[in-house]
């Protein structure tokens, strides 16, 4: 099995203050900490599990800045064989269809059986790149995958649906699968793997190296345009409990008991 896995470096914004910057079109990311996107971490693990069970290779692809190399090396340490990073600020990363075009250009130049992406990037939450990528490559796909079984020339996958149910579908290879979190238990990179990863190939490319023209993937070429970002008005009717932590606990406990909420 020749598998590609697409990973993205994203900020962890769950605990940080997000503020729109002066341009009005971006956020101030100077205080964010970054990591591999959650779902992509599961996708990497799934790719490595598939390689371990069926043989073959795992190639890592990432479109992003140099800081992404830390995450790419981690994926290589876990069992990836080589990596390509597309480092090109001209790509309109706000448009999933442009990102998909770039990733497709890397994959198209080789033979492959499977492409795994995460089902969603935590920063833009678009849930679009994987399925768009499949169409760019002209192959089948399944989104929101939580179980993969490789068969002869096919994969049988479970797609997660709403409400805890899932559907089983059978797809002819080559195919793109978008991987849902929780599909496996991502491993920690072994020390030995981390050392070996430093020696594995990591190619850094520009769009021209992929046979793409700037006017196919830049902002001007997009059919959508970000007008402005703004902070949503948080309409909260919540009663805010004030005080030191212990006081808050006491006030809340009293409200729950005396207010008949329990």
């Amino acid at each position, binding site marked *: 099995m020749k598998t590609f896995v697409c990973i993205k470096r994203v900020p962890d914004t769950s605990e940080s203050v997000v503020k729109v910057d002066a341009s009005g079109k971006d956020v101030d990311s100077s205080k964010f900490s970054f990591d591999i996107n959650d779902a992509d971490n599961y996708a990497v693990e799934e790719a490595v599990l598939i390689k371990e069970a069926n043989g073959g290779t795992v190639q890592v692809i990432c479109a992003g800045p140099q800081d992404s190399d830390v995450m790419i090396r981690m994926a290589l340490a876990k069992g990836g064989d080589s990596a390509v990073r597309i480092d090109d600020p001209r790509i309109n990363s706000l448009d999933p269809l442009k990102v998909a075009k770039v990733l497709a250009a890397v994959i198209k130049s080789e033979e492959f059986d499977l492409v795994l992406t995460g089902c969603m990037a935590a920063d833009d939450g678009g849930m679009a790149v994987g399925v768009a990528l499949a169409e760019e490559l002209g192959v089948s796909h399944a989104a929101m995958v939580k179980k993969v079984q490789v068969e002869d020339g096919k994969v049988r996958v479970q797609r997660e649906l709403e409400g805890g149910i899932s559907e089983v579908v059978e*797809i002819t290879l080559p195919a793109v699968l978008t991987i849902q979190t929780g599909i496996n238990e991502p491993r920690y990179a072994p020390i030995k793997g981390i050392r070996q990863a430093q020696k594995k190939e990591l190619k850094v490319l520009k769009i021209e190296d992929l046979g793409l023209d700037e006017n196919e993937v830049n902002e001007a070429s997009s059919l959508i345009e970000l007008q402005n970002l703004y902070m949503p008005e948080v309409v909260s009717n919540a009663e805010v409990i004030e005080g030191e932590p212990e006081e808050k606990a006491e006030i809340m406990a009293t409200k729950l008991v005396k207010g008949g909420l329990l």
Partner: protein
Amino acid sequence: MGAIYVLAEHRQGVLRDITLEMLTKASQLSEKMGGEIVTVLIGSSVDSFAEKLAGYSDKVLYVDDPLFADYNSDKYQKVLVELINQDKPELVMIGHTTQGVDLAPALAVEMKLPFVTDVIDLEFADGKPQPVRSYYSGKVNANFAFKGEAPYLITFRESTLEVAEPSKQGKVEKIESPLKEELDYRRFIEYVEAEVGDVDITQSEILIAVGRGLREEKNMAIIEDLAKAVKGDICGSRAATDAGWLAHDRQVGTSGKTVKPKLYIAIGISGAFQHLAGMKGAKTIVAINKDPDAPIFSVADFAIVDDLFKVIPKLTEKLKELRG
């Protein structure tokens, strides 16, 4: 103005809520920009849906064929390409659901449509629909503009609005399936039902919900203590079930359960829309989170902005004391 197309979503004989939500939004939009509301219904023996949808549409385009007994993105795509090419609607709305995200991006690529995903609202400006979407799990919103020619394509987020009463009496137009035979590269096999666990949290009156903020499995002890003190059941966000702290049947949200307890205490949960959709119907919601901007507070009745590790043990202790 061209039509607004809404793709009806249904599964296992049930019309999904997102369909009427989109139709409600479509009707608000069509008041401003004009254009007929056309619901596209693709299925097999779903006449009753067609009738119901007519109440919200100017027209229901209905493909009824055994080929569509179960959803298949590739087959849907073939039908939609045909219909969209024929009618050139202004806007095409597909649910931002596990079905819609499996379909819309490929449709956008194939037809080269201007495409925005996970839309939470639609304005009408400069003679065009203008999508609003959110970034960083709800912390920032973005106004987008479509460039180029219609049709424009969006996926629309679930549970963003109340469904309106039916006010139309559209005509139902059955059309022949543009697709004539099975596709062999993607086959539906079967549904796998949700796991059934020891406790059915949809029936619980008191729920203690935990999220990634709890950090480690061993910290579940303080949650269990609290649950015991209030005789509640424990549930959690997807982050908590993915991490294995809880069984999957305890997950609350779009891909888990929808719960309606009397009391829901959310601890270290940010409040992603997939989570909110499953719990905002709770009667009273208490949220404990150290981030004052956490979206969970938008649905909370009581907000405690603080470190859960400082608050929870004390809360449990005080509750025990008060309740004897």
